[in-house]
């Protein structure tokens, strides 16, 4: 059976973020609460955007924050935050962000496996729209079932 990188406790709906930094910190919080990454790793996700810009908004309405593994990624998994209100990250083409998928990633095959599944899934803009409009965590898990 293929391994899943997302579980129910890593999904949040109606995330009340008022800006991009809150969107990352709140969406990533379950990763910290569940021992998947350290708080410092989440700080690094934020720092990455401060230093390198909002390029993590990979496609319309979707941000994929990640940090450097050595900053405290303990396991390879994703958390998902569906924002209550869309937030501007400053990305010219893909703002505003509605869905935040935070990656905790250790280098290696497992990470590449996870990225590959995400890349295949997010190819379809409808999936991101469906995530944004999901009414409960079950729907989010169903949409991400191959992740």
């Amino acid at each position: 059976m293929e391994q899943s990188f997302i579980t129910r406790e890593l999904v949040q709906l109606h995330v009340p973020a008022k800006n991009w930094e809150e969107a990352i910190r709140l969406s990533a919080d379950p990763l910290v609460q569940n021992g998947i990454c350290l708080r410092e790793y989440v700080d690094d996700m934020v720092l990455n955007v401060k230093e390198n810009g909002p390029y993590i908004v990979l496609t319309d309405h979707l941000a994929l924050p990640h940090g450097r593994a050595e900053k405290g990624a303990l396991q390879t998994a994703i958390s998902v935050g569906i924002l209550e209100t869309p937030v501007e990250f400053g990305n010219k083409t893909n703002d505003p962000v509605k869905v935040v998928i935070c990656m905790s990633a250790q280098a290696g095959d497992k990470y590449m496996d996870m990225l590959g599944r995400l890349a295949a899934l997010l190819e379809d803009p409808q999936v991101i729209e469906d995530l944004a409009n999901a009414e409960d965590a079950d729907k989010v898990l169903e949409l991400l079932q191959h992740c």
Partner: protein
Amino acid sequence: MRYKAMVCCKAGMGSSMFLKLKADQVISENSLPIKTVHGNMDTLIDFDGDLVITMSDLCEDLQGKMPYVIGIDRVADKNEMKEKLTKFLADVQYAV
């Protein structure tokens, strides 16, 4: 002839790997004569290939410093990737 492309973003962690996966998928589905390697801003300095594929916000910094730069707006969008890779191939073939 196979063209050599480096796929990179500033940090060289997640986004550029994502971009490389997408580029490889489009290259293989369309049998394009391009081979990709993964890199970051540091390894880019020594890159001797034909093409750099990156996010569009980094594209401006690299214009003129590299033989050819493609900036991608929507990393998950295969059509955009295909259009820009196809344009690269048309451009270089004209230049020969």
